[in-house]
C-alpha cells in the first residue's frame, strides 16, 4: 500500500468513526447547563469527521499530483519509504545519511533526519498473534494465571522458535511461577488462581 492509499484509508476510517461517535452523542440526555454533557463529545465527533476528511482529501490531492507525473514531493517520498515494507532497517535511514557518497555537498536527503520504518509483518501472522493474545485474555481469569500464562508463553515461543522447545518450556514455566510469586507475595498484587485454587 502506498503512503497516499494508506492516508486515504486512514482518513476515511477516522471520519466514519467520527460519524458514529457524533451520532452516539444524540443519546446523551440534554440538560439546561451552558455546557451540556453533550457539548464536548459533539465537538470531538465533529473534529474527527473534519480531520478524517482532511487527511483523505490531502491524500487524494497528493495522489493526483503524483499521477500527473510531477516528481514526488519531499513529504510523499519520505512517507512512501516509510510505508513500503523494506527488509530490516535498510529502508529510509540507511539510504539517507549513511550511504550518500561523501562527495555530494548539500543534497537534500543527506541532511534529512529520516528514521528506519518499523518492518511490517504479514497481516495473517498479526491476526494469529492477536488471536492468541485474546484467547489468553479470555482464559486467564477462569483457568488461572499460572496455567494460562505458561500455556500462552509456550505457544508463542514455540511458534517463533519450535526447535528450542526445551528452553521454551523452561521459560514458560519458570517465568509464570516467578512472576506469580513476585506479584502475589512480594508486591501484594493478587492474580487469578482459577482452577488451581
Amino acid at each position: 500500500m502506498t503512503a497516499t492509499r494508506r492516508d486515504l484509508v486512514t482518513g476515511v476510517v477516522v471520519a466514519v468513526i467520527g460519524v458514529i461517535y457524533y451520532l452516539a452523542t444524540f443519546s446523551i440526555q440534554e440538560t439546561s447547563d451552558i455546557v451540556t454533557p453533550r457539548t464536548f463529545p459533539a465537538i470531538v465527533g465533529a473534529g474527527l469527521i473534519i480531520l478524517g476528511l482532511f487527511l483523505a482529501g490531502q491524500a487524494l490531492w497528493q495522489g493526483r499530483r503524483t499521477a500527473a507525473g510531477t516528481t514526488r514531493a519531499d513529504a510523499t517520498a519520505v512517507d512512501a519509504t516509510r510505508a513500503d515494507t523494506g527488509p530490516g532497517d535498510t529502508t529510509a535511514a540507511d539510504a539517507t545519511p549513511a550511504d550518500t557518497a561523501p562527495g555530494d555537498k548539500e543534497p537534500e536527503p543527506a541532511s534529512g533526519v529520516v528514521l528506519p520504518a518499523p518492518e511490517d509483518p504479514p497481516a495473517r501472522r498479526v491476526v494469529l498473534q492477536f488471536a492468541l493474545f485474546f484467547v489468553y485474555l479470555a482464559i486467564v481469569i477462569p483457568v488461572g494465571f499460572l496455567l494460562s500464562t505458561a500455556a500462552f508463553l509456550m505457544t508463542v515461543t514455540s511458534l517463533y522458535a519450535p526447535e528450542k522447545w526445551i528452553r521454551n518450556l523452561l521459560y514458560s514455566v519458570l517465568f509464570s511461577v516467578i512472576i506469580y510469586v513476585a506479584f502475589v507475595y512480594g508486591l501484594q498484587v493478587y492474580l487469578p488462581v482459577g482452577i488451581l485454587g
Partner: protein
Amino acid sequence: MDTLGDLAGGFAAAVQPASLAFALLGVLLGTVVGVLPGIGPISAIAILIPVSFGMEPVHGLILLCGIYYGSMYGGSITATLIKTPGEVASAVTAIEGYEMARRGRAKAALATAAIGSFLAGTLAIIGLTFLSPLLVQLANYFGATEYFLLMATALLLASTMSAGSRAKALISIFIGLAVGLIGLDFQTGLPRQTFGIGLLSDGIDFTIFAMALFAIPEAIRNLALGRGAKEEIQSFGSDRWMTKEDWQRSAGPWARGSVLGFIIGVLPGVGPSLASFMSYIMEKRISRRKHEFGHGAIEGVAGPEAANNAGVGGAMIPLFSLGIPGSATTALLLFVFTMYGLQPGPLIFRDDSALIWTIIASMYIGNVALIILNLPLVGVFVKLLKMPKEILFSAILVLVVIGAYAIEFSLFGLLLLGIFGVIGYLMEKGGIPLAPSILALVLVPLLEDNFRRMLQISGGSIAPLFTRPVSLAIIILMLAGIVGPFLFRWWVRRRKLLADVSVG
C-alpha cells in the same frame, strides 16, 4: 532561602535507606527496560505501574521517576548499538550514535550520552527546584480560565510541534479525547458515549489505554515478524572512552542542549523528543564539521541526549507546580500521583510539601546514580540486547495482562486491553502517532471541567479569556506556539537543513 530549606528537608528524607534504594532500583530498572529494543519510557512506566501499587506513595513515585530517566538513558544505548530507538527522543542518537559505533567509537558515543544526560538532567532539576515554587506563586492568580487555556495550549502544541504530520497528530489527540469522554459525566452523572454498555460507564482506565497502545502493538508486531529480522549489534570492546578532543567537542552541545531541552520541556504539550530533534538541527547548523554529520559526529549525540534529559526535568515543572502534564510520559506520572490520592499542583506544595521535596531530592540522587551505575555496567546492559525477541515480547504481553488485571480485576478490563491493543496497532499502521492521544485522554476531564467552570463564573461569556491578564498572556504564548513551528519549518526548509522529520 525557603526553597533551599525545603530541598534540604527533601534530601534528609531521600537518603533514608528505603528511599535511596527505590531511587537506585528505579534508575536501574528503567535502564534495563529502556535498553530492551522497542521499549521506551512510556511503555516502561506503563508496564511497571502495577509494581508500585502496593508501595508507599513516596517510594512508588521515586521509583517511577527513576524509571523515567533511567529508561531515557537506556534508550540511547539501544539506539547507539542496534539503531532501534525505543522512543522518539533517542531517534537522532540512532543516526549519529550508530554511525559512531560502526566506526568503533561506541564507547565514546555512550559516554558522551551518559555524561551529557547527567549534566543536563542535573541542571534541569536545579531549574525545577527553583522554578516550581515561583510557578506555584503564580498559580495563585490562575482560575478556571487559565487552567482551561493551559490545557488547550498543551494539546495544540502537542499537535503543531510534533515531528510528523500535524493532521495525524491532531487525529491522535481527538482519539484520546473521544476515549476520555466515555463514561459518566462527572458533573451531571449522565452516561455518555457508552453505546449502551453499562460496564463502560466507569470510563476507560488510563493505564489500560497506555499499556494497550504502547506495549501491545510493538510486541505483536515483533512476534508476528518472526525470525529473519536479525539485528546487527555493534560491538564495543577495545576502543577507548572519550578522548580529550571528544570532551572539547561535546562541551558546547551539552550546554546548548541543556538550555534548549529545558525550555522546550517546560512548554506544555511538547515532550523531550522535539528537544532532541531541535538540538540536532542546531548543532548541525552551527558546526564547523557539517560534513561529519551523518557519519558519526559526536556533537550529534552529545547535544540531543543532553536536550532530551533536560527536557525530562523541564517537563516535571508544569506537572508538579500546576498539575498539568506536558507529555505522554508526565501524563502517566500524573496518573500515578492521583492513584495515590495526591493532586499535583499548588496544593501539593502546601499540603504534602515534604513528599514533593523528597521526590525532587531523589531526582538529584537518581541522576548521580545513573552515571555511577551506567558507565561501568554498560557491558551488562548490552547483553540485554541479545535477549531473544520471542522471550522479551511474550513476557511484556504477560506483564501488561497483569497490569490490566490489577487495575480492573475483571474480564471486561482485559477485553478493553485487547481491543485498545488492536486500535493502537491500526493507528500505527495508519501512521498516527500514539503519544498525543495519551496526553489528551488525561487532559480531557480537566479541560472540560475548567471550561464549564469558566463559563459558569462568567455567565456563559468567553470574554474572560481575553480580559484576564494572565489568560491573555497565555493566549499570546499559544499563538506564538502555533505560528512558531510554521516559521521554524519554513526556515528549516529554506535552509535545507532537513528534508523532513519523520518517525516511523
